[in-house]
């Protein structure tokens, strides 16, 4: 399709041609022509946020839960700089986004014009790719290329900076099919010889583990199915990173729970003692590996990743396979079947016996109380009481995030939206807006901390405007709990600036935003209050007053090895769990 139109109209047309339904944005001088073009159509729906960071997180939530590219529109200068945190977040967590930023007219660029900033310069290190479009003739190509780049290979955010005169200029629009992608064609099929070698290693493993990550989610639903199939075929234990939760069903007996800094005892020990590791769609992040030279010292490692630069970045592996998770898993399953492979059943049985021993330590155990609500208990109840609902969870960052990961169980992908790589406080509330838009009938809950949620609280106003009944479930410990925990364990209990005095009255705050507020501080009232929250057809802030001193265990302190994990005092016998060196830390 070719047609004469203005640059601004091209933007709208290209978004529609790319199947965009919602765009999250905030207007300003440098994007007025685009807003004007938007006004004159009704197919593309605009969600007006209250801060540009919120727009990006909302688009991230939308993208993560739908698998589609999330879309953002902001103005030049402060609009663009406000978006930077969200863009960095999306880059770290490989979330596909296209963010359109307005720019001052081309003849003013470089003159320190009003609301000018070097958007491509500022966003270069926090985007997968970015463009400054200097001619309307380049605009259709750039718009379609941006979607292609955002969604293909390892997904990520792409910024298109469009000067105002280019938005006004007229040119010929070209549809997506008319613009060939020049150079960016990532490899999705893995090398077959390497996949065969991987199958050989896995079939001969005595103590195998599958370590999966967010790449499975990014690869699409099919990848999750194939992961399940491969696990069933082999009988191997499966663990996952924070970003990968839901790719493998938590109810499955082969599931070990999350691994890493706050992962389960069994997941981390299985990683530490395994002899063959299949890492698929994960990236050996420092929150996973702990001390690198003590990470799974006796294993041979296979790493499947669509991004070649992830392989051998942190951990040297024995076999790196560059390819898309679904494609590689499909080949692995096919070859396993074709060669009639069998796992080493006897060795595997011994391995599972060992794993069950680790499991029996019950590393997530906590001390229950009749007086105060334990944060873990609150999430357990939230989980139990939402079983008959179609639930999506987003989180903020801190202890509550880790407890949510530990105690909320996910059976399906795309239902867990959290800021993993960047760890952005303030992610969860706007993200839940994006998720709720994608699933209007479902129950969308932001499991929040009282400190984090204040960072983007203004988006409650957005939720109210679009009648999005998101539920903000605050585990209110009045502390930046995760900071307090580190100060307790690693800084001699000197709680420097981690207590928030004069917190707002969250119930009144909810009401001020035309939402509904609930407060609960007794374990006995919790079930009733949660049910009330679920039934309210409005945005809700649930102020769940929890134990202020609770710590999140297990914990592998930064720079420690998996076998130097700290356990809470209720879990198994601590003396046996930690070796001499680890004990010094307790």
């Amino acid at each position: 399709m070719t047609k004469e139109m203005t640059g601004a109209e091209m933007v709208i047309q290209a978004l529609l041609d790319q199947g965009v339904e919602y765009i999250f944005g905030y207007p300003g001088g440098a994007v007025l022509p685009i807003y004007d073009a938007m006004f004159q159509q009704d197919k593309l729906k605009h969600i007006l946020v209250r801060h540009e960071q919120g727009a990006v997180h909302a688009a991230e939530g939308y993208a993560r839960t739908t698998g589609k590219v999330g879309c953002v529109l902001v103005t030049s200068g402060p609009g663009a700089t406000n978006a930077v945190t969200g863009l960095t977040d999306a880059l770290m967590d490989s979330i596909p986004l296209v963010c359109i930023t307005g720019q001052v007219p081309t003849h003013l660029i470089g003159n320190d014009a009003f609301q000018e900033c070097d958007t491509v310069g500022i966003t270069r290190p926090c985007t997968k790719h970015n463009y400054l479009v200097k001619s309307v003739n380049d605009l259709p190509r750039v718009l379609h290329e941006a979607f292609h780049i955002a969604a293909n290979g390892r997904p990520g955010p792409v910024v298109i900076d469009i000067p105002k005169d280019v938005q006004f200029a007229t040119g010929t629009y070209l549809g997506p099919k008319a613009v060939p992608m020049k150079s960016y064609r990532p490899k999705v099929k893995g090398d077959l010889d390497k996949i065969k070698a991987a199958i050989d290693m896995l079939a001969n493993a005595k103590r195998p583990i599958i370590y999966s990550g967010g790449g499975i989610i990014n690869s699409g639903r099919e990848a999750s199915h194939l992961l399940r199939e491969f696990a069933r075929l082999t009988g191997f234990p499966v663990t996952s990173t924070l970003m990968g939760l839901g790719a493998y069903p938590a109810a499955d007996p082969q599931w070990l729970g999350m691994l890493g800094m706050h992962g389960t005892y069994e997941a981390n020990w299985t990683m530490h003692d395994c002899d063959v590791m299949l890492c698929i769609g994960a990236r050996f992040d420092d929150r996973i590996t702990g001390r690198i030279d003590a990470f799974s010292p006796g294993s041979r490692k296979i790493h499947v990743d669509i991004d070649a630069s992830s392989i051998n970045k942190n951990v040297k592996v024995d076999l790196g396979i560059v390819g898309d998770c679904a494609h590689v898993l499909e080949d692995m399953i096919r070859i396993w079947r074709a060669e009639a492979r069998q796992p080493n059943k006897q060795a595997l049985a011994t391995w599972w016996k060992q794993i069950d021993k680790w499991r029996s330590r019950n590393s997530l155990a906590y001390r229950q109380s009749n007086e105060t609500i334990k944060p873990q208990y609150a999430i357990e109840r939230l989980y139990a009481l939402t079983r008959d609902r179609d639930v999506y969870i987003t989180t903020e960052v801190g202890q509550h995030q880790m407890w949510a990961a530990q105690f909320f169980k996910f059976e399906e992908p795309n239902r867990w939206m959290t800021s993993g790589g960047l760890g952005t406080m303030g992610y969860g509330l706007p993200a839940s807006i994006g998720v709720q838009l994608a699933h209007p009938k479902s129950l969308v809950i932001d499991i929040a901390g009282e400190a984090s949620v204040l960072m983007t609280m203004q988006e409650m106003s957005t939720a109210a405007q679009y009648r999005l009944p998101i539920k903000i479930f605050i585990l209110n410990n009045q502390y930046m709990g995760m900071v307090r925990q580190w100060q307790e364990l690693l800084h001699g209990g000197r709680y420097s600036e981690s207590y928030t005095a004069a917190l707002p009255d969250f119930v009144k705050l909810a009401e001020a935003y035309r939402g509904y507020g609930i407060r609960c501080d007794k374990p006995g009232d919790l079930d009733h209050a949660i049910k009330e929250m679920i039934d309210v057809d409005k945005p809700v802030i649930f102020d769940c007053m929890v134990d202020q001193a609770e710590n999140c265990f297990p914990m592998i302190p930064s720079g420690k090895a998996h076998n130097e994990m700290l356990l809470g005092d209720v879990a198994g016998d601590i003396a046996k769990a930690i070796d001499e060196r680890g004990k010094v830390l307790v």
Partner: protein
Amino acid sequence: MSNATPASASHYPAATVKEKIERHTLSVLVDNEPGVLARVIGLFSGRGYNIDSLTVSETEHEKHLSRITIVTSGTPMVIEQIRHQLERLVQIRRVVDLTDSAMPGIERELAMVKVRGKGENRVEALRLADAFRARVIDAGTESFIFEITGASEKIESFINLMLPLGLVEVSRTGVVAISRGPEGM
């Protein structure tokens, strides 16, 4: 050393893996578009890689391609990372490690060397220039400018020899490199 943080004071361990540092020359074929060089340089500074030398110029006008030659140093793992990180950039077509045995490369650099002097020193400078096959591209009664091409080490030794003879200044292109044999990139 005195102001270094003692290992126990940080939660983060000191780097634990020790490998030897190697020097590699990478040839990078890129789309000649705005911002490519900024991306490459930003990648190196952002990830803490070293740039020992960097040259860039358009090489195929119709195809809109430029070639960047980067000399860098790091452990073998870091060198592999650099290559893959470069390959990840959208505008980069191909990266070849010319220090790798699979595609050994040949390297050259050009330098212009200004020497000022009279009498014995002047004669000696000319004599050495001749031995190094450096050309005189500008001459006055008091000074010469030599043009010399060759591997970086050769240029280095030439400059060192000129030092006591009245070296004023040097301008160097940095390393350009190409693979040996009949195949192109």
